[in-house]
């Protein structure tokens, strides 16, 4: 019962567990972390915490942030989530430039490469677009409204992405589907021309990202899913080029002792621009996998398994800066059941410079050092047990949100009988 499920979600699960998110500026000028409704930014140039300035007159609510990202130019930053507000920030002055009110909770956001449009997806599968009238630092603009762009009929959109050339907007959903839509000249009138559907996943899709370098006009799409695979697509035709099974890790492991369990969910992908590499985060895996994509042979393979020794650090979100090739990872969650603490997060980083063996940075080696950790984590030391509880809570929340429920025949009948929306039509 998707609809009742979603509508319940609207009211009941106010204190749903939300994973901590991380996003790093494309040239590593700053890094942002969210835990629940908290948005924390650290300025890596000045090496200090950023003070967010939000003078917009929109409504003020405190609910979990579900999506953050920097624009490709590094000028804009967007945050959005359960508070039904999309906040568009200057990534330089950290003033809130626009507040967009959404009718529903927001699950994903994207910024066009020329910073002219912001798209966001709501919990009902509708993608909305806002046109930005330039980045105007001085004045506080009245709140904006989005125009409907496209829709995945009653599904949850988990990821939104512009193609590197800006021609397409891509939307991935819990119904195993990725839609490739031409981003039109007049987006406010809707995006009606569907280029392709990328179909092949057998579970919900969690993340999509482009592998791209300047020699490619188009770039290839990678997608991660609850079906334990990462897939490679040609978006023009929607054809599946390769499938990389994430469970078959034997032989690749640097350390064999801890392999992910049989069925794993890929939770995040970030591709490293100007290379054919991508880092992948997996539910219940302490570390990250590096995948390499052969753009001529159209194949995808695991090149490295990087396990983080010691603490149980399972990243809930990862991000890489274009300039430094430092992979930033956060592990954490808000609204943990049975805890009165608002949330926890732990930040780690891995250097992925091609010429050197990838190295996991110690806390004091991370740019910004303990000052950064204090700002992004709240406190420096986090107990082990809290970390594992957070990872488990995030896993549960994700499967209850995205996995198709299998009801028994009787239970289904019962649910039908007790539905509110049915009573009037019978």
């Amino acid at each position, binding site marked *: *019962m*998707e*609809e009742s*499920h979603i509508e319940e979600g609207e009211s009941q699960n106010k204190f749903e567990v939300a994973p901590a998110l991380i996003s790093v500026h494309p040239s590593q000028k700053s890094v942002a972390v969210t835990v629940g409704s908290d948005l924390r930014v650290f300025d890596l140039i000045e090496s200090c915490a950023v003070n967010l300035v939000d003078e917009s007159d929109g409504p003020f609510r405190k609910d979990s942030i579900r999506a953050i990202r920097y624009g490709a130019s590094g000028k804009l930053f967007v945050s959005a989530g359960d508070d039904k507000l999309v906040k568009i920030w200057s990534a330089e002055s950290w003033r809130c430039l626009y507040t967009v009110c959404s009718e529903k909770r927001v699950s994903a956001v994207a910024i066009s490469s020329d910073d002219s449009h912001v798209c966001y997806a709501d919990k*009902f599968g*509708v993608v909305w677009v806002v046109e930005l009238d330039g980045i105007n630092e001085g004045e506080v603009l009245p709140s904006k409204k989005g125009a*409907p762009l*496209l*829709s995945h*009929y*009653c*599904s949850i959109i988990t990821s939104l992405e512009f193609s590197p050339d800006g021609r397409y907007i891509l939307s991935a959903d819990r*119904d*195993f*589907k990725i*839609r490739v*839509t*031409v*981003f*039109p*000249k007049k987006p406010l*009138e*809707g*995006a*009606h*021309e*569907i280029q*392709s*559907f990328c*179909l*092949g*996943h*057998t579970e919900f899709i969690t993340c999509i990202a482009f592998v791209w370098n300047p020699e490619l006009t188009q770039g290839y799409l990678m997608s991660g899913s609850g079906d334990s695979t990462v897939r490679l697509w040609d978006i023009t035709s*929607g054809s599946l080029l390769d499938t990389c099974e994430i469970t078959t890790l034997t032989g690749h492991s640097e350390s064999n002792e801890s392999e992910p369990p049989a069925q794993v969910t890929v939770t995040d992908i970030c591709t490293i621009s100007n290379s054919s590499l991508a880092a992948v985060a997996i539910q219940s895996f302490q570390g990250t996998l590096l995948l390499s994509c052969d753009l001529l042979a159209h194949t995808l393979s695991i090149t490295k398994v990087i396990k983080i020794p010691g603490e149980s650090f399972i990243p809930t979100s990862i991000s890489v800066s274009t300039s430094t090739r430092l992979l930033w990872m956060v592990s954490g969650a808000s609204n943990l059941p049975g805890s009165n603490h608002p949330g926890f997060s732990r930040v780690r980083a891995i250097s992925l410079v091609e010429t050197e063996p990838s190295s996991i940075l110690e806390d004091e080696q991370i740019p910004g050092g303990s000052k950064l950790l204090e700002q992004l984590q709240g406190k420096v030391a986090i107990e082990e047990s809290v970390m594992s509880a957070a990872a488990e809570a995030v896993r549960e929340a994700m499967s209850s949100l995205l996995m*198709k*429920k299998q*009801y028994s025949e009787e239970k*289904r009948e019962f649910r039908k009988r007790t539905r509110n*929306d*049915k009573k009037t*039509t*019978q």
Partner: protein
Amino acid sequence: MDSETKPTFSKSTGLPRKRFYRARAHSNPLSDSHFPIPISPLHVDFSLHFPKFVEANSKISKKIEFADIGCGFGGLLISLATLFPDTLMIGMELRDKVTEYVKERILALRRTSSGDQYENISVVRTNSMKYIPNYFEKGQLSKMFFLFPDPHFKEKNHRRRVISTHLLDEYAYVLRAGGIVYTITDVEELGEWMRSCLEKHPMFESLTQEELDSDPVVELLCNATEEGQKVARNGGQTFRAVFRRIAYVS
């Protein structure tokens, strides 16, 4: 299957009897699915649906071209089957029992008719509002039918309607340029809604009166289906909108 021994089949006609396939009047298209969903059009084994069209490589010789969305008891498919004997067509229906009925009805017609009639029609149980792209490739269809769809009167339920701007994007994707969408209803408000969605959509244009007059399918809209016949019996008015998918550059 022997119709004599099955009480659900009429003794006189050998066709399945509708009253054994009675189902609730309306289905909620938003509810979670409990039927198999093909991963992609390549994963649907249409040879099971159209055994007479199977070639040596065990694939069917042509692709489906017509889709009857919310086909109900299948009356339209049955009329179209003999009108376009070389065209493959499929009905999509959400209600389990109704789909079973249409399946049996087609099988019975295949058995009782002479020649290879009714071999070109079939039905699948699915939610067309969610899974059209799982069944059809880009530009595969030349006709789509939406006959007497559920009206969903309440404003709050308008998003359950089978014709909407967003769903038309998907229909435009599976229809080739030149393909036609046929809609008809006895609910005036819904008729206006469907027409205005189609009119506003940049990838569709209305057929002219001459085009409507020369299209043999148009007259089937109001009398081929069970719902259409019911409306006609009661002397009800119908509201029709027939539009062509046009070539389009965003």
